[in-house]
């Protein structure tokens, strides 16, 4: 089964791109975060407005204008400002930040056009203008939940999709201990390193990257299990020492594979 909805886009150069759709969870969280920010901004605005209102009215009366008309004007300006903030927030951020608002940035999703291009001012405006309609009676919510492409009404009209940003693979170098490096040279000579698939290497690397976050007991079990499996894959009968910590062994395999990979690519 598929845990995430995906969508394939054909570019004019007939390159096929696959995107993972954002999913209702991330979209709900993003919109909550954005609404909190907008609400906070609006409440700050109304506090400031109520502070200055009396002053403005006083100035206007002093200048000889009527209190009633200045009150109306202030209300109108306030309403216009509120609308500008609540819609402008989405239009501004989405068109300046390539389809992201602060909420979307935190949840790692972004808006793109149906053809895969970044969202522009036009699309952002349409989406923002239709937001109230989507919010009323949770129309947008049900459209996202039930539609195959997770589009709310604003997305249908603007021709946009909300997709996940692929997380870049962490490039940080792993710390490999001295003991493991020594062991790795033994492995290169004695073990059949070619039997280790790139998939196995990925898992070992992932374990080494994530091991600090694991529960101590679980980490011990997992490292021993992985080390045993890797050892049988490498058809390694003998080890230089009897007792080698599983972590050291896995680091050594990682290091040996990495070195070989480096050599292979330098031959090319």
């Amino acid at each position, binding site marked *: *089964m*598929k*845990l*995430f*909805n995906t969508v394939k886009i054909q570019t004019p150069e007939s390159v096929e791109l696959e995107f*993972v759709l*954002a*999913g*209702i*969870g*991330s*979209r*709900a*969280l*993003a919109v*909550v975060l954005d609404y909190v920010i907008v609400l906070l901004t609006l409440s700050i605005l109304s506090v400031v407005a109520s502070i200055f209102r009396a002053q403005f009215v006083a100035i206007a009366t002093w200048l000889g204008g009527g209190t009633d008309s200045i009150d109306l004007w202030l209300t109108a300006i306030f309403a216009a400002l509120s609308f500008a903030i609540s819609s402008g927030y989405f239009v501004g951020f989405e068109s300046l930040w390539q389809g992201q608002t602060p909420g979307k940035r935190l*949840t*790692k*999703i972004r808006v793109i056009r149906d053809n895969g291009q970044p969202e522009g001012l036009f699309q952002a405006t349409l989406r923002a203008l239709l937001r109230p309609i989507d919010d009323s*009676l*949770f129309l947008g*919510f*049900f459209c996202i*939940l039930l539609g195959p492409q997770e589009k709310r009404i604003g997305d249908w009209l603007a021709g946009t999709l909300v997709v*996940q940003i*692929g*997380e870049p693979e962490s490039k940080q170098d792993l710390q490999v201990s001295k003991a493991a490096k020594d062991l790795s040279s033994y492995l290169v000579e004695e073990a059949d390193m070619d039997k280790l*698939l790139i*998939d*196995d290497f*990925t*898992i070992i690397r*992932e*374990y080494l990257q*994530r*091991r600090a*976050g*694991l*529960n101590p007991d*679980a*980490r011990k079990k*997992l490292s021993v299990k*992985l080390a045993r*499996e*890797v050892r049988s*894959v490498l058809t390694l009968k003998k080890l230089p020492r009897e007792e080698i910590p599983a972590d050291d062994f896995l680091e050594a395999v990682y290091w040996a594979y990495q070195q070989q990979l480096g050599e292979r690519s330098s031959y090319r």
Partner: protein
Amino acid sequence: MTVNPTGRLRPINVGNVVSVGISLYRTNFKTYSGLAFKSLLWYLIPIYGWARCLMIQGQIGRLGFKEMVREPETVKQAFRQVVKRLWAFLGIAILVWLIQLGINIGLSMARGVVSIPLLLLARLGDAGTAISGLLQVVLFLIVFAVQIWFQARFWLYDVLLAVETDAEATEAISRSWKLTQGSSFRVQLVLLIASLITMPLFILSFVPFIFTIPYFANFSAENPDPAFFAALGAASLAFLFLFLATSIITAPFLQSVKAALYYDCRSRKEGLDLELKSRPS
């Protein structure tokens, strides 16, 4: 992508935990909602029925989890596993409830003690009253945060009971505690999003009452209109029906989300997703 070579999902963010829960539910909608309907019927029978009701909820979680680790089970297979500890579902639920009750009593006592100086502060004039009121609100928020912090730490126990059938039943509580260690905030966010998503359905079940508004407008106490009571009765019935239907629909959703969260905690804390591809030998 977020998937390992063996097809198991890597740790995912909170939004995706909820989305995965939804897609688990969507692909198994008939099975899960059927089970939820059964569990609601069992709920009507005291004690034994309650145990069955909780067991079925755990069963839904187990089915979801097994699907995520790519070892899918049929409803019957899952049933054979969970029925072995039928009474544990009720017993542990009561135990967790008692623990949370104890925590809440402790918290309200602590809150009472802290409130005393605040009440004294309120007597020191207007400024004192204002500050005291503000501090009371802060205190309330702190107590609430601590409460949901504990709730989040215990949340996974029923899926644990249903999945880890080899372990002692009472271990489910401490396992839930351990698995959520350091991720309490994540669990709370998941709870928040999940309840936000179920909210529209619950709100919509109140819609029948909208149709009684015209009757309220013409209502007079001296000369009550029988149509008013008829409308109110019909609306209440419709509400009850919709509310029950919503509960049946949303319960499996929460269990699927819980299954996804349990999977995520286990891959984070125990590296469940990290395994070598099995080779043909």
